[in-house]
């Protein structure tokens, strides 16, 4: 893109640095320094009030020693987060692709449909949570009202397992499908129509066209959607915090909830930073793996 274009030749190049200086200032202060600090903090035993004590790798050892309270809670939350990711990511990716395929066609009112499916994505997680807690209400929620109308027993949407996971999945899918649908629609719009026309002449049916044209052309979008959705869902906090409160028991307590609890309720800054680092490194590794596994060749 930038080949062959001449850039302005600036005699005093220090002037160019003036333009990037404000960004660099905030970037260093709030991104570079904290990232480096996080490593130091993870070596501390620090309650945020008294003097920090250097404890070396103890915070990490603690997490990898079976039987300690922190390790059992941390890995339970880790597992819960993985369950949440496994429950939500496949339906989100699949449904947003299906919605996009349906709305890529020249259906009457397709902009209205797109708008309706996208609408939840502009709402805050707490607004979404309030709406759905009421949907899931045991006695007066619309779901249980209709379930009883069909003569079935009430469902304890938020207090039984695995119903609590199902509820959180429904909410998250409803909230996240629209944004990814828009990405897929953009990907679909970029596929040249001539590809479809020429294969139609060669006698390919719509199913073959889907497999041999649509899917390969969407690969880049698919990879992006997959990586971003995995990252977003791994960082889940608002839905379980407001809808199930981590319950029943601790069965929907996710990593961000536990890390927040350790840092800002128990004030164990070192331990919580160590947990953040493990979670962060896992996320980096996970994203790199997905790119390696799925990156389109050439």
């Amino acid at each position, binding site marked *: *893109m930038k080949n062959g274009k001449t850039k302005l030749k600036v005699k005093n190049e220090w002037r160019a640095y003036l333009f990037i200086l404000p960004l660099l200032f905030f970037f260093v202060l709030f991104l570079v320094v904290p990232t480096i600090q996080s490593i130091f903090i993870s070596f501390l035993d620090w309650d945020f009030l008294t003097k920090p004590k250097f404890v070396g790798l103890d915070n990490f050892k603690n997490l990898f020693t079976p039987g300690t309270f922190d390790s059992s809670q941390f890995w339970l939350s880790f597992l819960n987060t993985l369950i949440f990711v496994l429950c939500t990511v496949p339906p989100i990716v699949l449904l947003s692709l299906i919605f996009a395929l349906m709305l890529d066609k020249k259906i009457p009112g397709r902009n209205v449909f797109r708008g309706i499916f996208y609408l939840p994505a502009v709402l805050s997680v707490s607004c979404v949570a309030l709406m759905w807690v009421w949907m899931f209400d045991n006695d007066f929620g619309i779901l249980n009202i209709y379930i009883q109308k069909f003569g079935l027993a009430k469902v304890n949407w938020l207090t039984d397992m695995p119903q609590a996971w199902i509820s959180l999945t429904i909410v998250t899918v409803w909230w996240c499908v629209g944004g990814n649908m828009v990405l897929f629609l953009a990907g679909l719009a970029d596929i040249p129509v001539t590809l479809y026309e020429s294969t139609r002449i060669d006698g390919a049916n719509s199913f073959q066209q889907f497999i041999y044209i649509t899917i390969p052309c969407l690969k880049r979008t698919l990879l992006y959607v997959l990586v971003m959705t995995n990252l977003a869902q791994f960082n889940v906090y608002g839905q379980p915090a407001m809808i199930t409160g981590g319950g029943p028991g601790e069965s929907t307590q996710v990593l961000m909830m536990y890390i927040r609890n350790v840092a800002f309720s128990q004030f164990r800054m070192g331990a919580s930073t160590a947990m953040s680092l493990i979670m962060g490194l896992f996320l980096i590794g996970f994203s790199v793996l997905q790119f390696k596994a799925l990156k389109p060749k050439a």
Partner: protein
Amino acid sequence: MKYLKRIKISYLALFIILLVLAFLWLVPVIWMLSTAFRPEEESIGIVFHWLPQKFTLENFKGLFEDTSDVQIMRWALNSTFIAVVHTVLKLTIDSLAAFAFARLTFRFKETIFWFLMSTMMIPGVINLIPVYILVDKFHWIDTPWAMIIPGLGGVFGVFLLRQFFEGLPTELDEAARIDGAGLFRIYIKIIMPLAKPALTALAIFTFMGNWNDFLWPLIVTNDASQRTLPAGLSIFQGEYMIYKGKLMAGAAFSAILPLVFFLFGQKYFVKGITLGGVKE
């Protein structure tokens, strides 16, 4: 003819499927609104109705009766102030930097740019506690600055704007230089007006991201009056657990601004989402 007919039937089927799905998608919104606009007795009554039998604004009036813990109007003002100031600062900083990276030459330009971009890989959770400690050192806890300033370090906007700026014709800058315009004049008089679509998209994206943020405002505010609307709603939820109408009025109230933005800026939303990711 037969072929056309088949297409029409399959389109009709698709249309009906979409109608059903769209209705299902709207059920939580309809349910929220009908609960917000009816008296409490109706919401927890024995007979079920989709729409309010008796229309009332009581639940919304209740939102204005702030208690010391629940201050919805204050939260809405906090949210708006924070998101507006954050967005203005972010766009200024990002467009200045993007101008340099896209239109000027200077030493280490590529190195600095790719170093900046590589940090997009760092998950936010790693910085959560160190940034909190920093914000506490600056005495920003329970002030709007805690929610305005730290996000200014992000580099996504620079990436987005640089791509757009690079696509603008360079002849414009050169002509302006020959006329003796300074760098800052070129930035403000030529580049910024041309970049309006990208700037609008980034502005909406930044505003909505900041406005809807949930976890960070919860962490950096203890004083209920300093909360943003989304973070405040969690106090609100605890306080009015049993008042369904009031809860839904609060949820609906918090949805107004995002919905207005959505209705008037739909095409920019789409642009903001798609510009960031897939397009090379």
